[in-house]
């Protein structure tokens, strides 16, 4: 009985080994800073991710050329995209779509345009690039991503790109040597706080050959954190304190500038 089970396990393992893609590379990455603090003088920050492409086994051959795509996704949020139309001469929000649990920050960083790295089918399957990243919309009772040229999706990506929250850069990844790379990750000034996932994908000849992940955390620090936390969790107290502050400053003003 025990021997039978062992044989079964071994044969299962052998099948798994045969099915797994023959990976010859692995990625080793290191982020310059895993924790970004948003303080009162925060105006954005550039993070740097360093990495190397290493052979999976000793003396395994490496390929001539690699492509690298890094996808950074910020904490999820739900947004409404509204469309204005002219009604009786004025512009009014008429139609709206809700984008459910989409990243508040999305950066697709690569060494050349993602369209040139892999065929569209591969990009779609791996969700690489702004065109192929899954952005679910609430449509009726359920949620689904639409075709990529859906007007609301296009407008959403355009607005987020203008805000600096979404970006696709074909020059953010630099290969220092054929196997050593540097990735610049720009965080804008209005970066949301929370956990950010970094997904690093290595391509060769249009195929995914290796993949690794990393993460970073953006936190509000010091006074900013205190104020934001108070406003969210102690609304009444926060409001009263703000009002009292107004009265104090008003009173102070009348005392300082008193002329009698």
């Amino acid at each position, binding site marked *: 009985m025990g021997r039978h089970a062992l044989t079964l396990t071994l044969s299962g393992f052998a099948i798994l080994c045969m099915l797994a893609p023959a990976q010859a590379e692995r990625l080793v990455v290191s982020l310059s800073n895993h924790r970004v603090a*948003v303080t009162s003088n925060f105006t954005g920050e550039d993070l740097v991710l360093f990495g190397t492409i290493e052979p999976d086994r000793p003396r395994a051959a490496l390929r001539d050329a690699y492509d690298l795509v890094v996808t950074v996704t910020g904490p999820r949020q739900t947004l409404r995209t509204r*469309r204005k139309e002219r009604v009786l001469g*004025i*512009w009014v*929000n008429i139609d709206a779509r809700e984008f459910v649990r989409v990243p508040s920050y999305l950066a697709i960083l690569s060494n050349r345009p993602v369209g040139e790295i892999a065929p569209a089918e591969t990009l779609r399957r791996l969700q690489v690039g702004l065109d192929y990243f899954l952005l679910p919309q609430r449509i009726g009772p359920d949620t689904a991503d639409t075709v990529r040229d859906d007007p609301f999706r296009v407008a959403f990506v355009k607005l987020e790109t203008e805000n600096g929250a979404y970006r696709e850069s074909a020059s953010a990844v630099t290969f220092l040597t054929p196997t050593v790379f540097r990735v610049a990750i720009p965080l804008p*000034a209005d970066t949301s706080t929370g956990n950010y996932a970094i997904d690093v994908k290595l391509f060769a000849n249009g195929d995914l050959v290796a993949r690794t992940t990393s993460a970073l955390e953006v936190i509000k620090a010091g006074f900013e954190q205190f104020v934001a936390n108070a*406003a969210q969790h102690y609304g009444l107290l926060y409001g009263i304190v703000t009002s009292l502050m107004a009265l104090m400053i*008003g009173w102070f*003003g009348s005392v300082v500038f008193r002329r009698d």
Partner: protein
Amino acid sequence: MQIYLPIADLPVNIFLVLGMGLAVGFISGMFGIGGGFLMTPLLIFIGISPAVAVASVASHIAASSCTGAITYWRKRALDIPLAMMLLSAGIVGTASGVWLFTLLREVDQLDLVIGLSYVTLLTAVGGLMINESVQAELRAHRGQRSTLRRPGSHNWVHGLPLKVRFKRSKIYVSAIPVWGIGFSIGFIGAILGIGGGFLLVPMLIYFLRVPTATVIGTSMVLTLVTMASATVMHAVTNHLVDALLALILMVGGVIGAQFGARTGQKMRGERLRLLLGLLVFAVGLRFAFELVVQPDDLYSLRLVGKP
């Protein structure tokens, strides 16, 4: 110097915001108004979302009207019983305003309602002020004396029941229009982020015949309390009051108001009203322009929630 605003979630130049506070404070001191109708649009213009702007300006107006109210209180130019009666309705108005504000935000029509209300209110009030002061100027030019307030002149408002006597203002009026005015000022203030001083003063003069000696002081007390309570209510329901932004605005506003008041005292009343009328009208036109002209981008985003 950039400073990061914790609730508005964006960095602003501290000197720019302080300068805006000073400029609006100067104007508010000069004309004896809160200046919310200028401050809210300015904040929206530098990229702060309308909702945060409206909620934060409320506390800024509370600070500037506090300074004013204390000054008038020292001069005994306040009618406390009248202010209290206006207030009792004003608080109800503010609460209803905050409720409608939340509702409009839910259905994506807050910006439209703010825009439309600004256009209607500001062009109407500005137009009336310009008209009135131009006629006063013309009368002065022709050498006629301007018509003084006749104590005996009554309008339909004075025919209403529930009469109350206000000793300091020397008026005997029905409580109904007093409540009506208090309610509407509180309501408008909470939705539009304006103190309503520029509406309240004319209303008190025309409807209730409150004498000029007590009208500004009384209106400032009302503004102070409605705006302080609007701050608390906005903080509780929408969590949108940015205390840091408000603090910078307040400091600028209180200093600016002092210099504005000195400049204002050197000018003639009619001239001052004409200037204010032009200013109010221009801001109204600016909003009308925004509603009518096709926006650069037909689409806009609004944050629903962070899961």
